[in-house]
């Protein structure tokens, strides 16, 4: 097999607090091949956004990366900031949740899209802006309604997100990281943006890392998934396999609690409203994560040995060359859906 585009080996992100350090992300192992689409799913505090920021080298000042973070043969964890700048925006690019704050409000959109090409590819402003025009067309903002000299505030939320996408893909990066790209948008606009991303990735063969809390979005957009909980990957594999089995009780719980799971299924007539299957308790505070399975205290399937050690991410099966792994001593066997 060829070398993966991105490989995390025992990757941890630590945050020093006083004399101690806590791991915001602990011992993550993930591989992402070229052209793959990986979805990282989790709730707030799961570490999914920190994972993305670690790959982009945009972690908050105090946080430190430990372990290996190999991007196309280069270890990003040991890279100097200077070298990193040559990668960021060129080889890897990111789309943020809130396009209003991610775009510069006092710079025309054309200049923002062209900036990367001038900086990374050494193009002249004229060439870069010609290219920016093409990119705007590509993301569905045609001339003359959407000229290069518009400012972000003259656009709607969905249009701004399209500009963000154009900015991100301007230098034809190998890896596109999208952190909750549609969370701030209305559902109908979300559908358009997802369609756009879907088509762009199909056309360019970019690798996608999609961070989201929405199981519907990952299911539709990715072929591979990693479910994170309290700073660890608890289940990973082909999206279809993970959805079919949901071996980790947290993955199962998240699905059952999600109104997409229960709510949009037809409701039995006359039976009153069924309750959602809530997960009791709350995500453990990063300062007070237990030394054993972090989900044990909320788990409905918990057994005695769950509170003795941290379960490893064990192999369950392999399908189409992608391993299905779950970090659970007693993974659920039955299929959620055939």
């Amino acid at each position: 097999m060829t070398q993966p585009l991105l490989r995390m080996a025992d990757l941890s992100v630590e945050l020093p607090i006083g004399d101690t350090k806590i791991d915001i992300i602990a011992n993550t192992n993930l591989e992402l091949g070229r052209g793959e689409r990986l979805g990282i799913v989790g709730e707030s505090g799961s570490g999914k956004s920190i994972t993305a920021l670690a790959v982009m080298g945009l972690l908050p000042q105090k946080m430190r990366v430990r372990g290996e973070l190999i991007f196309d043969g280069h270890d990003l964890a040991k890279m100097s900031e200077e070298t990193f700048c040559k990668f960021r925006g060129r080889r890897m690019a990111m789309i943020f949740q809130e396009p209003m704050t991610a775009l510069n409000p006092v710079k025309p959109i054309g200049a923002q899209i062209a900036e990367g090409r001038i900086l990374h590819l050494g193009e002249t402003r004229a060439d870069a802006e010609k290219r920016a025009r093409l990119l705007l067309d590509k993301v569905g903002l045609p001339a003359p309604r959407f000229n290069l000299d518009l400012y972000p505030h003259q656009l709607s939320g969905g249009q701004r997100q399209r500009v963000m996408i154009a900015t991100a893909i301007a230098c034809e990066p190998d890896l596109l990281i999208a952190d909750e790209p549609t969370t701030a948008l209305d559902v109908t606009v979300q559908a358009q943006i997802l369609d756009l991303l879907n088509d762009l990735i199909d056309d360019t063969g970019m690798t996608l890392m999609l961070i989201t809390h929405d199981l519907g979005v990952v299911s539709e957009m990715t072929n591979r998934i990693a479910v994170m909980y309290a700073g660890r990957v608890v289940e990973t594999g082909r999206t279809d396999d993970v959805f079919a089995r949901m071996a980790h009780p947290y993955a199962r719980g998240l699905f059952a609690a999600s109104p997409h799971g229960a709510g949009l299924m037809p409701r039995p007539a006359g039976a009153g409203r069924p309750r959602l299957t809530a997960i009791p308790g709350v995500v453990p505070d990063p300062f007070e994560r237990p030394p054993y399975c972090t989900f044990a205290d909320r788990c409905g399937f918990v057994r005695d040995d769950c509170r003795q050690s941290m379960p490893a991410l064990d192999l369950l099966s392999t399908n189409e060359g992608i391993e299905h792994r779950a970090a659970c001593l007693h993974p659920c066997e039955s299929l959620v859906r055939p």
Partner: protein
Amino acid sequence: MTQPLLKVTDVVREYRLPRPSIFSKQEWLRILHGVSIEIAPGESLGIVGESGSGKSTLARAVMGLERPQSGQIMIGGKDIYALDRTSLRDARKGFQAIFQDPYGSLDPRHTVRTIISEPVVSLERGVSAAERNRRVAEVLDAVGLPAASADKYPHEFSGGQRQRVAIARALITRPSLIVADEPVSALDVSIQAQVLNLMMDLQEKFGLSYLFISHDLGVVRAITDRVAVIHLGRFVEQGPTGEVFDNPQDPYTQALVAAVPKPFSGRRKSKRQQN
């Protein structure tokens, strides 16, 4: 048929647009174009719409916070914008509100006891401190928080617990209608399910009616009996929740339901797998 608990008739709400100069003509933006809905006692009605549809404006009008330019809002048979101060205070005991942001809806300077008892202090002037404390303990118990929470401050709680405090505050005057504006949108999925379940339990226990505003179709489907879809200040479709979502009639509702990403839909995948 029994009398509806909430009857909204032809409500029009406009906002003043900022004038470019003090000499230009005042322009108005019409947010609600004469909307009408009813809620029966014990029923929960969902209002579904996207940003800018006017759903939150409608919520604030029903909460008695923003007087509409025309139309009527009758709660328990009384037009709340036609009441004098004293009668409105009396009527407010019958309808309370829950807001979206569990961090913004509780005053950080007050204890949970002060926060929860505020409606009693303000609306039921004769109630003694002992009786107030008894009721605080009662509603804390109803929302599943320990009695000791009363003397803590909001920052000591998680998002889900804060939303429980907000629900307790809405319950303390024993209202028959609760207006909930996006009450679970800021919460994580697993916590969201806990709060929705709690709201359903409380509804059955106290016979509450909900006016439940949300952009999330899944959430609305889980908790409401009937739903009204609002688009650009007008209702485009109303009906029993299951029927509207399973078999939408209006083109906008159809687009809305179709746009929601769903697990196992296989959408956006087929194309990829052919490549």
